[in-house]
């Protein structure tokens, strides 16, 4: 862990891409992704979407939380405006992730358009692994390597989604329930693992408490309010706490 990371000798782009794919397939996130997307496939099945639609949503949206929201709200006949708002809010986290990833990928000669694909492939799994692994990769190979990680994960997600979709209708209880349960369980532990700051933990805890209240109270735009209230309260509390301690949280 403490040895300085020395970028190895430069390789061809194709080789760098393939090493990225291998890194994705040997990553712990492959299992979590497979689990989440088997759950999402089963969810899409239960809400009556086609297998092609579900795969397209993985390729285009490429964010498991947003896809869960998309399937469950569209499938339940929610208003388009509410769905779009909920998706936009859940995907806001992609913005700082992309911003933090770019400095690692760029060289002086990098054109804006070669950053579009890594930006599209940015999701929690790919982002965490890229930040961990990219410093070892020669700078001129990083975009190819990063695309390899992202597309490697995406391939797993697509296959797992199809498997979950096909299994959902046929599995007896409790196996069908098991597949659907993978999604919340995997999200819960991976979000908690990724939240190192107090503000993130508070946000998760408050959101977990406020969400059900909003849904039981049949408040319109329940998810959006859950996010805004939970996130703002968590942010305010952590700011006050930091001020009292006289240091940043």
């Amino acid at each position, binding site marked *: 862990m403490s040895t300085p990371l020395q970028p190895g000798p430069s390789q061809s782009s194709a080789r760098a891409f393939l090493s990225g794919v291998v890194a994705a397939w040997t990553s*712990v996130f492959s*299992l*979590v992704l497979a689990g989440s997307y088997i759950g999402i496939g089963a969810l899409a*099945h239960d809400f009556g979407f*086609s297998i092609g*639609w579900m795969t397209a*949503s993985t390729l*285009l*949206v490429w*964010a498991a*939380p947003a896809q869960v929201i*998309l399937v469950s709200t*569209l499938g339940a006949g929610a208003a*388009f405006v509410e769905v*779009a*708002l909920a998706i936009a809010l*859940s*995907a*806001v*986290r*992609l*913005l*700082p992730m*992309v*911003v933090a990833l*770019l400095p690692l990928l760029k060289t002086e000669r990098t054109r804006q358009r070669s*950053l*579009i694909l890594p930006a*599209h492939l*940015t999701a929690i799994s790919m982002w965490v692994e890229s930040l961990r692994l990219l410093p070892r990769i020669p700078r001129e190979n990083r975009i190819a390597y990063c695309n390899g990680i992202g597309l490697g994960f995406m391939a797993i997600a697509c296959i797992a989604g199809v498997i979950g979709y096909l299994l*959902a209708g046929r599995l007896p*209880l*409790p196996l*069908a*329930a098991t597949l*659907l*349960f993978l*999604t*919340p*369980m*995997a999200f*819960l*532990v991976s*979000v*908690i693992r990724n939240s190192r*700051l107090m503000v993130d933990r508070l*946000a*998760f805890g*408050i*959101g*977990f408490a406020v*969400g*059900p209240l909003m849904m039981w109270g049949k408040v319109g735009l329940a998810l959006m309010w859950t*996010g805004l*209230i*939970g*996130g*703002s309260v*968590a942010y305010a509390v*952590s700011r006050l706490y930091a001020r009292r301690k006289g240091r940043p949280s």
Partner: protein
Amino acid sequence: MSNLALHSYLALLLVGFLPSEVWRWLGVLLGRSLDEDSEIVLWVRAVATALVAGVVARIVLFPPGGLADVPLGVRLGAITCGLIGFFVLKRSPFAGLIVGEAALVAGALFVGR
């Protein structure tokens, strides 16, 4: 392609793809000018985290499909077991997932008997 199918793909593009992809494009445009540790990003991330928590709570409390046949108590118990497994076993997401799933299956079998 039927009208209904076309409609659902259109919905995917308009309310699924565009609202999520716009943040990635913005990220590329903003590039270096926004600090990952800035206050606004911290707040925005907290909002997003609370929203994911809401999604988890929604699936556990108001579950779709086959999960709805498992009693609420078993679902809540399984989530709790998974959390405990996660924290006890070196904060491994695998451990949490496996323990939670095992608890769900055990609970569902026990109740169903």
